[in-house]
């Protein structure tokens, strides 16, 4: 038992019962927030597993991997949920993950096969803005405008990393120039997605890096049609979010059960209207009304995990040095 939880137990008389097995899932903050999928997923899984599912928010997606590296083989986590394909190659290299065998009827564009990770949702990165704004249609126009944007740090956030690779994929060697031109549009670089999106909603920026599916949240959950996304003619970089099982888990069967649950309809039907992403397996009842269409193949950009891993370090250096000027 961790010293910290022991400590908390002293004061809070923790009600944890020793006999119930505990499955610890590290995930990103917005997944476990009150309005995220966390609460519904937890009650749905606990109803059938006879276990205590503890989902711990550990920053944004990219911070999850750093966190696992910090904890190494001593990590408490059994499952990590919320990495994406831009990180899976680096994650596999840590030797911290265990191979999984899981099959499902994935609706992920391009299909799916991976030794260590299974997808749970996917989407397209996009800049979200209010409908009363005349949005730019590509990065050059955005950089030339005096519109203010909020983006996320690629070292801690998967959208941040996605943007990095989006620009790299679209512009190649010119990516550094794009970043240099963009730097005066950036109000601030936040650690995670929630922080950036919150700032946008409070009016601190004109556009925020998010997903093509984000406006659906406002439309469906709040009946507010004032948000939309800017369609870029370079195409939109895709994100496929995945989960994996830790090699050090002491709840092997339970972890497998959770992964199986993850690609089942119970879990997948929660995703569209809580995580506001395309589910990895299309639910029986389809997508809700008001959910956007998938983009065409020509409009979709994505690097393979190996390509992403190979590009990341150089792209990160470019980003850092362009923005530190």
């Amino acid at each position: 038992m961790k010293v910290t939880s022991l400590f908390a137990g002293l004061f809070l008389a923790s009600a944890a019962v020793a006999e119930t097995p505990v499955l610890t899932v590290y995930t990103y903050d917005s997944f476990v927030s009150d309005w995220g999928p966390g609460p519904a997923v937890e009650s749905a899984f606990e109803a059938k597993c006879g276990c205590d599912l503890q989902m711990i928010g550990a920053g944004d997606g990219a911070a999850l991997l750093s966190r696992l590296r910090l904890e190494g083989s001593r990590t408490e986590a059994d499952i990590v949920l919320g990495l994406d394909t831009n990180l899976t190659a680096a994650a596999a290299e840590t030797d911290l993950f265990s191979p999984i065998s899981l099959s499902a009827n994935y609706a992920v564009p391009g299909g799916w096969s991976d030794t260590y990770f299974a997808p749970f949702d996917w989407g397209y990165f996009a800049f979200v803005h209010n409908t009363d704004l005349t949005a730019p249609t590509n990065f050059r126009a955005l950089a030339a405008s005096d519109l203010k944007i909020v983006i996320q740090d690629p070292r801690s956030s998967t959208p941040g990393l996605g943007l990095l690779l989006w620009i790299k994929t679209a512009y190649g060697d010119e990516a550094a120039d794009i970043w240099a031109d963009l730097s005066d549009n950036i109000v601030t670089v936040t650690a995670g997605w929630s922080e950036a999106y919150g700032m946008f909603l409070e009016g601190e920026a004109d556009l925020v890096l998010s997903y093509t599916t984000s406006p659906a949240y406002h439309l469906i959950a709040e009946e507010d049609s004032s948000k939309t996304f800017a369609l870029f003619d370079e195409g939109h970089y895709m994100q496929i979010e995945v989960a994996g099982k830790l090699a050090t888990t002491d709840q092997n069967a339970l972890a497998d059960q959770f992964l199986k649950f993850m690609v089942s309809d119970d879990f997948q039907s929660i995703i569209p209207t809580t995580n506001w992403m395309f589910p990895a397996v299309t639910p029986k009842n389809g997508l809700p009304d008001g959910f956007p269409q998938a983009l065409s193949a020509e409009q979709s950009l994505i690097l393979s995990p190996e390509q992403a891993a190979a590009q990341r370090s150089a792209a990160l250096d470019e980003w850092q040095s362009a923005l530190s000027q």
Partner: protein
Amino acid sequence: MLRSVVGGAALIALLIFSLGTALVVGLQGRGLGVLNSADWSAIKFTLWQASLSASLSIAMAIPVARALARQSFPGRQALITLLGAPFILPVIVGVLGLLAVFGRAGWISAALDWAGFAKLSVYGAPGVILAHVFFNLPLVTRLLLQAWMAIPAERFRVAESLSAAPWAYFRLIEGPMLRSTVPGAFLLVFLLCLTSFVVALAVGGGPRGTTIELAIYQAFRLDFDLGKAASLALVQFLICGTVSLLAFLVPLPQTNGLGLDRVLQRLDGWRHRLWDGFWISIAAAFLVLPLGAVLFRGLRHLLELPPQILAASVTSLTIAIISTALCLAMALSLSLAFARRGALARSLAEATGILGLASSPLVVGTGLFVLIFPYAQPMAFALPITASVNAMMALPFALRVLMPAVQETYGDYLHLRMSLGMGRWIWAKRILGPRLRRPIGFSAGLAAALSMGDLGVIALFADPDLQTLPLMLYRLMGAYRMDQAAATAVVLVVQSLFLFWMFDRGGRRHAAFG
């Protein structure tokens, strides 16, 4: 004998904590070659912002201190007391307040927007410098005010009776005082801004506003690049070490208990009054508005406090109390062991105090992490490590207060004690104890408040289910739940001030001797 052993042990513990961890970091580092252009930008930015923050703080503090020294007005004493607040105010609360006033969604931007101007952009260098001036302007003002008060009243009268014109007046009186005070004050602020972390984390705005301290944190938490973190930590240690050496040559201004309640001289010219009034209003507004904004918003939303506030409070208070006990134990044993020895021993003890000031929490944290990692899960030691590092960060300030008091007591009464044949116990209980009560109370209050507000090492070591109040506040800001953040800020400020007040008052009560 016992005193020397305990004092020596405290000294060794301190050296291990500061120099030892730096050594570990140095060995772990992969040299300066691993630093990329962004890292060098961070190093340049750190030095640049620290120079600018220190210069601006001093340039503004001079007219404010002068105004406070020569004008008497209702609320003057309250304002001077308030000037002491930012030092013990949790940095993250100050940042929240500054955003409420100067942020894009803040009051000034709203006014500018209404008047048809562009909104303020506070993220990046402007925000970092603004926050540093917010925290250090009051500190420098108090230091300068003390120096002004320490000028013998006769000097002012001699100058006045000679009919000295303003410039001659400045050369005769204020010039020399500033010449002896400003370099020390500059170095102190420079040093404090060098190791700034929370400000850059919250309003740095990305790579353009990254300090070395923040870069260490990012190399560590975001890249898990221990070698790079160590190389950056080495750079940080070298810079701080150099500045501390300078600080050792230029004595840092003493914060003694000179009464600030008298007004020195009255220059009744209306131009002076107008000028002084202007600076006093600027300083008061700059201090009161951000704090007022947070507290006002927090009080309105106090009922929306998240339930974790209780656990976070308990964690914060526990760390603060352990850290205070540690800090006092170290400061007392160092003061007692070195107070009676020669000047060399005293400057050694003083130097160790400055070492504490120069050590960056994240360098120490990195060193400890590297030490623990091969054997255990470092996160499990988050609480003891945070408490110890906080104690070390407060130590220089506790030493500044305790050392002179111990020296004075021995200087004033040692001969009396000997001639009366007073035993050690009676001496400790009847003379030393009561005489030290006040400085002990004050330094305990300081150590506790500083620990309550800390958000440095804890950010490095914290796991998601461990919260201190500042960490919780930062996470709430991260989730952009500003109302709850403000409410948490109220709880944090109340607890910090309460701890400070309780310890300080405990020291004042029954203090038999002035």
